[in-house]
């Protein structure tokens, strides 16, 4: 009997989409000079452009500062709206939605609907500063 060969599937056969989540000290980022901010954006732009040309870039978003955030705690009924970002550490980031809303009220309404479908935990609602839809996985 010939030895069984383990065939490892090549990545391109099972393309995966990865989310790369950006964390940084927002107060420190807010202290960047205009020149520094532009330099960082230019460097990122080069990387993003290469990815886009390869058809590998999905949506890119830059969020507004956490001061613009509202949090909906959906682990209670009715869900509780709180100002500010999600700050607990015992829960983990499991996913996200990008939704077109006319106002924070509408965004909260949408979050409540999602929360009724999936109670527990919380949603942080944060407006986007920048959004490029991208094409990967489309």
């Amino acid at each position, binding site marked *: 009997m010939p030895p069984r060969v383990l065939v490892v599937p090549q990545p391109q056969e099972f393309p995966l989409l990865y989310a790369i989540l950006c964390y940084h000290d927002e107060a*420190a980022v807010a202290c960047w000079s205009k020149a520094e901010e532009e330099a960082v954006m230019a460097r990122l732009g080069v990387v993003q452009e290469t990815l886009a040309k390869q058809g590998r870039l999905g949506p890119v978003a830059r969020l507004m500062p956490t001061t*613009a955030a509202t949090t909906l705690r959906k682990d209670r009924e009715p869900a509780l709206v709180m100002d500010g970002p999600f700050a607990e550490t015992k829960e983990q980031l499991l996913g996200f939605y990008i939704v077109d809303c006319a106002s924070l*009220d509408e965004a909260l309404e949408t979050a409540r609907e999602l929360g009724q479908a999936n109670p527990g935990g919380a949603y942080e609602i944060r407006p986007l500063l920048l959004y490029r839809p991208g094409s990967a996985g489309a």
Partner: protein
Amino acid sequence: MSETIEDPAWIDAALTSARPQALAALLRYFRDLDTAEEAFQEACLRALRSWPQNGPPRDPTAWLVLVGRNAAIDQTRRRAQQQPLPADDIIPAPTESEAEVAERLDDAHYRDDVLRLLFICCHPELPATQQIALALRIVSGLTVAQIARAFLVGESAMEQRITRAKARVARAGVAFEAPDAIERARRLAAVAAMIYLVFNEGYSASGDSLAMRAPLCEEAIRLARLLLRLFPAEPEIMGLLALLLLQHARTPARHDALGNVVLLEDQDRSRWNQAMIAEGLALIDKAMRHLRRGPYQVQAAIAALHDRAARAQDTDWRQIDFLYAALEALTPSPVVTLNRAVAVAKLNGPAVALAMIEPLAPQLAGYFHFHGVKGALLRDLGRAEEARVAFDRAIALANSAAEAAHIRQHLDKLAKDGATARPVPSA
């Protein structure tokens, strides 16, 4: 971190952003502004030596507080050995363990610490300019030279001003125990007003002083963000930050190449900063949900209506009139009524607006903008001679060359229109 060694910019940004919280915590510990500042300074020097090699600490603020505190205690001990003074008075008793100190660096403490640090700069006895200078020096960490440039005074004069202001707040004494809810609200209101002063100092700049004072707007926005991060559920602080962002968004279009002010209705709106407008709109939306109306929210809403109009003629003057009426009810002031009259002129014509501002004359006789608005209304009514008198009065009261230059444009135009409308008999 590959950028660590060759690019120290991240250290500058980290130190600048940590400054208010770190300094505020050190102030709580030492209860003396100069000692706290020296301690922070020493901690920054050590950070500049240590961080490039070791990378940034996990919590830069806590690092700076602990290092600064220890450095200042060492310093005090050394001084005490050199000159034997009543040691108990000057050496802060280092009774707590490091762990206890670290424990006290939690957010709740930081919150009141930073508020206290900001509040110290708002002492009611200090004139507005000194409050601003003190806040920029202490909280923002600008150098005396930078502040002197912003105020167009010499460095030694500014140094003296800041020293005197510091002495005055030190004499006044600020309570170091955690404030109760009422005291906290009082401090918040005073600090918000001071931040708005810092912003206005930059926003009212024009001409030669533009480049030197414009950074004050960004500094004010940074302070407002700091305050809102500490008090995330205060609608008036949301309103304040929204107001600053919605006004600052117009900065790229507010001056011509010579630094002269371009009026709102003449600005190239494509140059407005849309990201700032978007953030301001999101914040005012968030604030309004609290249904706790306040002057900053109303002013931000007015700014939002201007920013949302793609063209000047799309401005929703009816809403703006309504909001100014709300502002009049919240903070009655002839200046608010004067602003409202501008909206009323757009809605109901110059005659109605003029009737509205005429009763304000006794209170606003010495106010540049009153005569500017009055002149414009009279001009629109075809009362050129009276308009000229009002414009002349405005020029006499102008606070800057740019303000005077702006009114002079009106006068020139008036003269030109007059010349074409009524041909003067040739001499």
